[in-house]
């Protein structure tokens, strides 16, 4: 093997023979309905979705800087039914990524790896995402 990255795949087995390390199983081996793998991939999906969502964020600021006319147009678009639906999706992704991000930072600190704990924090993330998203939209309709 000539590629440096390939070298990272090489290990020795218990007899000291050079072997190619096993890869983690192919995607199909995971049951995505299980809270562990499902939430894991959701973090990535919401991260990329939020990345696309920054287009909305930047457009909002640029229109505001452009002036009165542009800003009233974008405010009207975001307040339209389709606009609200997209913003709803955005808040859902944001609150999920936010809550699960806290879980990730906990793992990075070495906490919360036991399976029962992991399942509990996973359920907590789902519950908190729903509560925060609903709270946001209830307040949004109350203030305006």
């Amino acid at each position, binding site marked *: *093997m000539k590629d440096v990255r390939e*070298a990272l795949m090489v290990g020795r087995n218990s007899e000291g023979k*050079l*072997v190619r390390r096993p890869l983690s199983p192919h995607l199909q081996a995971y049951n995505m309905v299980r809270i562990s793998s499902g939430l894991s991939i959701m973090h990535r999906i919401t991260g990329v979705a939020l990345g696309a969502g920054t287009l909305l964020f*930047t457009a909002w600021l640029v229109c505001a800087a452009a002036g009165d006319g542009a800003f009233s147009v974008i405010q009207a678009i975001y307040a339209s039914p389709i606009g609200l639906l997209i913003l709803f999706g955005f808040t859902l992704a944001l609150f999920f990524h936010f809550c699960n991000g806290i879980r990730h930072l906990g793992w990075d600190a070495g906490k919360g790896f036991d399976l029962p704990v992991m399942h509990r924090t996973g359920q907590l993330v789902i519950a908190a995402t729903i509560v925060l998203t609903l709270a946001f939209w209830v307040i949004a309709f109350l203030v305006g």
Partner: protein
Amino acid sequence: MSKETAAPTIDIRRSGLGRARGLGTARSGSAHWWAERVTSAALLPLVLYFVVSVLVLKGADHAQMAAYMAEPWNTVLYIALIAALFYHLDMGMQAVIEDYVRKDAQRIVLLLVVKGGIVILALASLISVLKLAFS
């Protein structure tokens, strides 16, 4: 999956000591990892602030928006949010692209295109906030 299955041999220049210690590429991996966690931690309060600011600015007209962004604290927090958010997004997208795009040429082009787009969005957001703040 792999071209070589049986008993691979190594003929690349990587020292036995480096391999024994499990050292990686000895480049910027751990700094990248830290920056991702630091921006995540910074985003926790900044995103909460942003969510509140969106509620405050709901239905705002241009004058209200401009007045809001001209408040020094709002200017500062929006700039901090923009910096943390786009930095975090840049590193996140890099990780995702590196995971899924195997071909070197494709990966490098995609990395540069995405990074370029993120830089443009970050600058556009930043300049817009500054313009609102100073006019």
